[in-house]
């Protein structure tokens, strides 16, 4: 890792118990675990039930159009808005929790190259975790807090705190970038020797290669979907909504009902494709990240291999069977949930190893303390 500017001295990258790097690593894995468990609960108890309620409300709106019931239309769409908000805020909370977890792991990787005092780094890490918790919790509460006592006409307190969380993360990101820039511009900072970049263990290589393949598969699937289905799917979506309303108004109930059925199927197909695409790429990035942190997983090699294999197997099962939901329905959904559970178990296993880390790599002679 040495460069012309940092060629004269070297210092080891440290992983002290209450240091910034460890705070980012443990906080990041906990955020990912919390996001995944929340996602599993959401998928089992909210997702499908909410989708059925949205479909029922569209049916009610179509019936209201057929009978000329303007108030009925208004009620149906209020319900749809409510169900969509329920869905959207929970998805946002899930996605942001996991996304911030990844970001924390990445910032942990960069810590040796952030040119600032350990105290300042630790403060940034704590600030980051505060923002990373505040944003998803705030988003989750938007639906329940609403506009109560809010000083604004359209944004409630939960939204304000969620935005504050985003601002904190943004500030930390800028601070870390400034520290990195300072490191690279400085000719007095010693070059950092990071043991993480030297690891060539089996679990490290399996996670790196498996993760890179997952990301590649995800991009290929995304490109295929965008190239062959996205635009036609959007056009079909618009045509079906229009057919629902116009057919109901034109006394063609069969056409309206058929459009509603097709619309439901289209929503499921779109959701499944988007979920498969995003999950496979996210798990790929997670595998690469965890591959890099294997030296800090203080477990025997067989256990490290078990957790690595379990993580990769779960990472392939979940998106593959989310995609198969289009053909196999809830059976595939159940298998996908098992894949998610495997990833959660593997993450717990690796987290246990990181919590057991004794500082062997930090010690000058490589002896565990």
């Amino acid at each position, binding site marked *: *890792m*040495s460069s012309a500017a940092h060629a004269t001295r070297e210092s080891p990258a440290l992983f002290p118990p209450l240091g910034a790097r460890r705070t980012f690593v443990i906080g990041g894995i906990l955020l990912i675990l919390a996001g995944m468990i929340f996602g599993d609960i959401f998928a089992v108890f909210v997702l499908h039930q909410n989708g059925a309620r949205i479909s029922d409300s569209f049916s009610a*709106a*179509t019936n*209201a*159009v057929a009978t*000329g019931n*303007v108030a*009925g*239309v*208004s009620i*149906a*769409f209020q319900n749809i*808005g409510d169900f969509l908000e329920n869905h959207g805020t929970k998805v946002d909370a899930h996605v942001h929790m996991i*996304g911030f977890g*990844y*970001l924390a792991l*990445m910032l942990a*990787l*960069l810590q040796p190259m952030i040119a600032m005092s350990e105290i300042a780094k630790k403060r940034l890490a704590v600030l980051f975790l505060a923002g990373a918790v505040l944003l998803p919790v705030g988003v989750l509460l938007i639906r329940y807090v609403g506009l109560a006592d809010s000083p604004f006409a*359209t944004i409630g307190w939960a939204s304000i705190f969620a*935005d504050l969380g*985003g601002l904190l993360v*943004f500030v930390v*990101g800028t601070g*870390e*970038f400034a520290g*990195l820039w300072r490191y*690279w511009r400085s000719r007095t900072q010693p070059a950092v020797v990071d043991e993480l*970049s*030297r690891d*060539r263990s089996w679990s490290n*290589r399996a996670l*790196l*290669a498996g993760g*890179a*393949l997952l*990301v*590649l598969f995800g*991009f*290929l699937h*995304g*490109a295929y979907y*965008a*190239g062959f289905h996205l635009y036609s799917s*959007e056009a079909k*979506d*618009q045509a079906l*909504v*229009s057919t629902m*309303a*116009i057919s*109901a*108004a034109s006394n063609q109930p069969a056409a309206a009902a058929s459009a509603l059925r097709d619309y439901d199927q289209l929503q499921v197909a779109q959701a499944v494709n988007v979920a498969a695409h995003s999950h496979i*790429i996210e798990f790929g*990035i997670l595998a*690469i*990240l965890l*591959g*890099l942190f294997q030296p800090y997983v203080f477990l025997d090699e067989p256990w490290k291999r078990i957790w690595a294999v379990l993580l990769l197997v779960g990472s392939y099962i979940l998106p593959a069977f989310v995609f198969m939901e289009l053909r196999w329905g809830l059976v595939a959904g159940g298998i996908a949930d098992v894949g998610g559970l495997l990833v959660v178990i593997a993450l717990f296993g690796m987290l246990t190893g990181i919590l057991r880390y004794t500082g062997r790599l930090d010690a000058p002679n490589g002896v565990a303390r």
Partner: protein
Amino acid sequence: MSASKRLLIIGGLALGIWAMGFGLYYAVFIEHQTLDQIASSLTSGFTFAAQRRLPEARTALAASAQGTYVYVRQVDAHGHWIGLAMLLIVLGAAFDRVGFEERLRFILALGLFAGAVIFPLGVLLETLSRGGAPKFLAIAGSALIIFSLAGIAAGFARTSDP
């Protein structure tokens, strides 16, 4: 630190900060208003249909579809910029393991970085124009990402034990 690694890490951080700034601005000033517009147009479309005012219903439903088209792309651009920024940083951290000469590694890193900037930009520009140029940008960007990623995966596979 090699130039390829530096490009990925600095480029990834810069892209991530840009994406977070864009997301924050979008969430505060645009998202709620866009969602309100989509919902009100959809409700108006069905209400006009219930009143048998079909031309107005079609217009409102088309406005709702246009709002959704824009919303999806704005969120996609934000999400892909953030996701790709994370990918750049992660791959940057592990880039020493790509078993090619530095010149080829730099080309792969440059392709990935350029694709990560261009692809979501093309998606975002589709909200301003439905012509071919934004689509071309999006396709070219995603092709750059896919080819670079395939090269990097092959480079990881070539890595030998020290």
